């Protein structure tokens, strides 16, 4: 299967380990990727605050580029997935608006007719590959481990723009994938909440309260690590975990935060270091040790 690849800005910036682990994993999954090199940033909802139309034009442009390639888009970031899906949903239901945007795109000889499908790697694992075929690619049984899913707001809301009615399993996609590795999915309150990243630079106090609550609650519920399909969530939950938990008296930063492809890679038996797990700010040394003892 082939996809037009939209890695997003952070995978190329502050989370290069996401990009690398993705490439390692898709190879094994049999997914062929062709990067949409001309695509712009989605705007992450922030651009849209100031200029909704600009955000929509840039995202519909990305959709048009993929349509030109005659490929569905694969994303690896909840925020990218959400923002592009919202733009897609908006124009598919408003022909007048789509015509307006196509006028802009015409200047670049681009045109969007509303046909592009956008899927996060997480959904591709579930829907295009399937749980059983995926499990056949796993070499390591992760049972005994407990992973806390953290979806990232834009991967699960708003449900009508994310195809949840047609594909209700998407609501629990991360739980399902975690469980497919043999591990348990932690039951804790924060899995569908906000990580606080959007207000990190605006109201850091509240942002860190969120990080402390979700990582603290996950740890208290028995999680060995947290898994997230969004690198922005990762930046906050990993990068600011130490400060957050200290400030909010939730102990030390002892909950490793993993990117989704890293989890898949580990289950496939790929080297954790290669997957970039040692690059995270919250130490994963202990986790890697217990993983190695599983293999041994």
């Amino acid at each position: 299967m082939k996809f037009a690849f939209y890695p997003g800005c952070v995978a190329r910036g502050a989370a290069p380990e996401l990009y690398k682990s993705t490439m390692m994993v898709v190879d094994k999954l049999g997914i062929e990727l062709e990067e949409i090199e001309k695509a712009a940033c989605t705007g992450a909802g922030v651009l849209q605050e100031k200029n909704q139309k600009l955000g929509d034009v840039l995202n519909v442009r990305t959709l048009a580029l993929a349509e030109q390639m005659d490929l569905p888009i694969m994303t690896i970031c909840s925020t990218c997935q959400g923002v592009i899906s919202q733009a897609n949903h908006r124009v598919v239901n408003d022909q007048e608006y789509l015509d307006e945007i196509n006028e802009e795109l015409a200047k670049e000889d681009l045109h969007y007719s509303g046909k592009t499908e956008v899927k996060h790697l997480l959904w591709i694992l579930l829907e295009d590959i399937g749980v059983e075929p995926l499990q056949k690619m796993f070499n390591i049984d992760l049972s005994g481990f407990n992973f806390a899913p953290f979806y990232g707001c834009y991967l699960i809301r708003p449900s009508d723009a994310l195809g949840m009615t047609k594909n209700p399993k998407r609501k629990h996609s991360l739980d399902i994938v975690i469980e497919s590795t043999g591990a348990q999915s932690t039951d804790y309150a924060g899995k569908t909440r906000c990580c606080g990243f959007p207000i990190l630079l605006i109201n850091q106090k509240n942002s860190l309260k969120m990080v402390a609550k979700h990582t603290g609650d996950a740890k208290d519920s028995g999680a060995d690590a947290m898994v997230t399909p969004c690198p922005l969530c990762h930046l906050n939950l990993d990068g600011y975990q130490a400060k957050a938990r200290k400030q909010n008296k939730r102990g030390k930063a002892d909950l490793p935060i993993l990117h989704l492809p890293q989890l898949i890679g580990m289950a496939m038996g790929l080297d954790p270091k290669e997957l970039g797990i040692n690059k995270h700010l919250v130490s994963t040394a202990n986790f890697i040790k217990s993983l190695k003892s599983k293999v041994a």
Partner: protein
Amino acid sequence: MEALIKVKRYNPEESEDTYFQDYSVDVAEDSTILDSLIKIREEQDGTLSLRCSCRASICGSCSMRVNGSAKLVCKTRVKEISPDGEIITVEPMGNFKVIKDLVTEMDSFWSKMKSIDPYVKTSFEPEAEHIASNESMTHLLGVMNCIMCGACVSECTALEVDSTFTGPAALAKAYRFVADPRDEEANSRLGKLNENTGVWDCTRCLACVEVCPKDVAPMERIVKMRDLAIEEGYTNTSGYRHTESFNDSIKKHGRLDETRLALESTGLLNITGLIDLAKIGIKSLFRGKLPPILPHRPKDMKKVTSIAERLDNQGKEEE
């Protein structure tokens, strides 16, 4: 059909502990969860307390958590939630103190409502009505549809960590006045909403938009008011700097320049903030996670930046 409902009980007269009670009730195929709860209350357990009135999704009384997320139970069908007869968990709304069973206090809700001066501030013209376009009035229909049920407040992830946040319901209501052409205080309203606990504390998680039974879309109103506040000249917030910086990034590179964003949002004169940022920056540097000086740009970058430039100017013209 049999509806299996697990209700979170709490009776302060008996104990401070909450507990779950299982009920099984026989109801019609198209029954709502409210129908079921009323039947339980009327036939099986008179001690169950809940608020309900109109049964037609207009009074806003019956908002409660169904399988973890707030809904108006008068318009939520049993079959919709549990197509195969699964147990439905019903709990009181989140982010509110519970009075008893499914009844929460609403004082915090009403006081936040009051804090935004919820009445049109206009000069009284007893002779005739204010002239206003139909568009401007129908535009307000969206927010006027709010029945003050509290579902958005129940699921607000910002309120969960900070109860001083004004919250989605009160802020959506504030928009109703800001956007009312007859209200003469839009500017000062926006000024107040621009401050602490106001529009910039929303974490843009879409939870309120997702659960609102009336499509009021509180988050979108909040975001709109951020925009309006900036237009009115309220630019002394990190929120403003954040949005501006992001915009500039796209105009310049077509992609996000994370480093610049972090610096500019913090504020180039904010020494403590910058030192803080530097700490994370250094840690990231050592792990090879510091974003490159020049962000990875899209191919044919100029195509993107020209669109951004053009639409940004268009936006400015419209202002």
